[in-house]
């Protein structure tokens, strides 16, 4: 039989027309991520025309601070959605854990470190409980977390007795409002660029080794340069205000860590498989229940980190803290190309989605648009983003 395997990319390339080759290349360069970055830049250009203050270092620094909260939540939400579930309780968990942290420090005079540890522990505990109901008792996640959303808010109201709890210690506040010194910022930038270049190179080597289709070398170089310039601009902008805000570093570390978990670990693969086809995953020997519970633990843990960051930034815990944050997180994931059916989505996408949401918020408020407009615009953008995504996908397969 002459139906030879066309495994080697080169062989396959020969049978491709120029147009297909270009398409393939673009696909490899992750068209999605680039359209999203382009959309983001579009939003920025628009707002900077409307108000020259928008692109000032001070406002951008502020903008990134604002997006950090949604980003951290979106990372956890992404895992939940990829596994085929939803977590509506994260906003209330942010409020509750932030409240607990503030109570321990303000009312009971605990030091910052034990406060953080206990708060994170509460996050894990909540995740275990909710995850157990979803995974082992088969109650739909929508219901469990909807119940959780109400209960955790209720607990917060109860333990805080309805009062605002403030102020926190300086060490605690640093988490939400500290800045990285200038030189250290540049140092981090260099490290980041080197890491990107090296990993790109390594990836290229493995792809070559296995004969996968390679994008031309210049494309890779352009890609690295692109990231380097992006990082450079970012650091110099932040440095011309007060330096890189600490929460941003936290977001980056978490995003990288969870991207690694999602892409490179057995657990990550399992989560995507479960979301893609639970039955096939189960029959392939994957412990679906355990993994599902783990995903909820991650989500609550990240929500408790968000609770700490938020409380530190505003230097107070209130009973309304975190309200509706779950919706922002879901919207960020969806804008970032995550399918609510489960099985697909990337963390980078979710973080960029969070940036889009935060930019809209920030831009509209510095334009002094009324609050109601912000809701209307954000809702509209959400629907448009999903429509565009499905539209372009349909074009590709037809």
């Amino acid at each position: 039989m002459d139906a030879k395997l066309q495994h080697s990319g080169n062989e396959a390339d020969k049978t491709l027309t120029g147009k297909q080759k270009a398409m393939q290349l673009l696909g490899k360069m992750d068209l999605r991520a680039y359209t999203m970055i382009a959309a983001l830049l579009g939003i920025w250009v628009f707002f900077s025309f409307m108000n020259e203050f928008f692109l000032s270092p001070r406002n951008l620094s502020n903008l990134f601070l604002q997006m950090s909260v949604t980003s951290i939540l979106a990372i956890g939400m992404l895992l939940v959605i990829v596994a085929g579930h939803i977590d509506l309780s994260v906003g209330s968990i942010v409020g509750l854990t932030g409240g607990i942290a503030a109570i321990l420090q303000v009312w009971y005079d605990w030091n910052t470190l034990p406060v953080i540890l206990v708060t994170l522990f509460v996050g894990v505990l909540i995740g275990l409980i909710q995850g157990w109901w979803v995974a082992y008792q088969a109650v739909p996640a929508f219901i469990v977390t909807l119940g959780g959303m109400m209960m955790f808010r209720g607990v917060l109201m109860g333990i805080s007795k309805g009062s605002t709890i403030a102020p926190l210690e300086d060490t605690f506040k640093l988490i939400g409002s500290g800045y990285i010194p200038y030189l250290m910022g540049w140092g981090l930038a260099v490290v980041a660029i080197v890491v990107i270049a090296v990993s790109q190179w390594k990836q290229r080597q493995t792809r070559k080794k296995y004969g996968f289709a390679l994008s031309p070398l210049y494309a890779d170089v352009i890609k690295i340069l692109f990231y380097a310039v992006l990082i450079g601009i970012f650091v110099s902008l932040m440095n011309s205000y007060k330096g890189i805000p600490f929460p941003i570093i936290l977001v980056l570390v978490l995003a990288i860590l969870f991207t690694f978990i999602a892409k490179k670990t057995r657990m990550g693969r399992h989560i995507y498989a479960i979301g893609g086809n639970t039955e096939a995953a189960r029959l392939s020997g994957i412990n679906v229940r355990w993994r599902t519970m783990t995903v909820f633990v991650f989500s609550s843990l990240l929500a408790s980190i968000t609770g700490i960051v938020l409380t530190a930034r505003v230097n107070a815990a209130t009973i309304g803290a975190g309200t509706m944050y779950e919706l922002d997180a879901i919207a960020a994931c969806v804008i970032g190309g995550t399918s609510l059916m489960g099985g697909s989505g990337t963390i980078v996408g979710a973080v960029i989605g969070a940036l889009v949401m935060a930019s809209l918020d920030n831009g509209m408020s510095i334009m002094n648009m009324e609050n109601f407009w912000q809701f209307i615009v954000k809702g509209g953008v959400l629907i448009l983003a999903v429509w565009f995504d499905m539209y372009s996908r349909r074009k590709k397969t037809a």
Partner: protein
Amino acid sequence: MRYALEMKGITKEFPGVKALDNVQLNVKKGEIHALCGENGAGKSTLIKILSGLYPSGSYEGECLIHGKPQSFSSIRDAETAGIAIIYQELALVSEMTVAENIVLGAEPSRKGVIDWDQVTHDVQRWLAEVGLKNINPQEKIRNLGVGQQQLVEIAKALSKKAEILLLDEPTASLTDSEVEILMGILQELRKRGVTCLYISHKLNEVFRIADTITVLRDGQTVSTRPTSQMTEDQVIAQMVGRELTDRFPKSKRSPGEVLLSVQDYSVYEPGTKSKKVDRISFEIRKGEILGIAGLMGAGRTELVTSLFGGYPGKSDGEVWMDGKNIRIQSPKDAIRLGIALVTENRKETGLILGMDIRQNLSLAHLDRLHRGGVLQENEEVSLAEQYSQELRVKAPSLETVVGTLSGGNQQKVVIGKWLMTQPRLLILDEPTRGIDVGAKYEIYQIMNRLAEKGISIVMVSSELPEILGMSDRILVMHEGRFTAELSHEEATQENIMYAATGGQ
């Protein structure tokens, strides 16, 4: 006009694959025209073009119906032109009733209100035509067997009063008696002047019923000839591009000691006390191929899935492996013990359709492909490479998403996934469903090779020739019990069917 359907110079490309390359197809009015070809030859793609699923503009070439050029932009357009299609994969809504499914999209209504009396009346007639008189139109689809569902699909196509009927492997999941019904229906339709384009990997059916055969290979038309001027061997040779003398490869092997023994094993339907499998005992030796025959619904799938730890219902009885009593609670336990199960429904239980070939191949083997939880990607890729070559998966690369592979290639990926776990006991549930003769032969060879290496194989199959040709020993199951045990020499089609229908 002589031709009901003409396709001229059809070329269709997907990213990285040329599925159809200048295909010509001429189908005479009122004939049954068979379309044969290997997995991935482009058969399904061709009829998806005809049915409007791939709209005009997304391919090159021309379609003519009764001499008139057509440009369908949707399935609706094709239906208006008198074309109905029965897809390779079932396309019914499982939570809706039989009646609702049949009229779906064409509900008879008055001012938008559906006339359900009319529906029930019509539906009963169409059901009778496909031999499903006893089915209640109000039954939900999910309560029907696969074969019955397929017949409902055909009833649905009939209800559209189609002049051209496209059938993509309609018999892949039918029992023999259901196949008989279908053959009858097709002959009846031919008398009425309906034109049928019929895709099947079962050449005996093709030769029984088709007037003309067109063979496709690698997206190109190889020949179109009257059935009377062809032989099965010629068709096979044209399909695979070489002679294939034996349908079942021979192998010399002598089963060794007992690997697995099962005693008084029962399986209960989930949440009830009714038994799907009733106190069954059997054993399997090292290097033996054990065939399990029976009709659909006999409990074969329940038995093997339960042994593998993957059935939701409870079970009792004893299982011994290597002389040790074992308890398998989950597929994970089974895999650890070296048991693998190729499930019968690749789309629902075998594959993650959105993942690529590599990720699907390695899915059951991940526990041995990581270090501290981090995947060893190099190892993963080279193993995936090895198994996809061994099984001759036809795809542009390992990064191809399995959802876009042809049915047969998907099946190979499922089998490859389990071979990668290097099982000691390989259970295959309908392993060659929807697979072309060439690929079947390859799978049989793999089975032989594994058996020669001392691996035990249990094969559940509804295809008697395959059971007869491959098994060392055959167990026949009927309503949850074994009704016969036959050696390779004793077994014949007749005594298997006798036992499968309940004769002792």
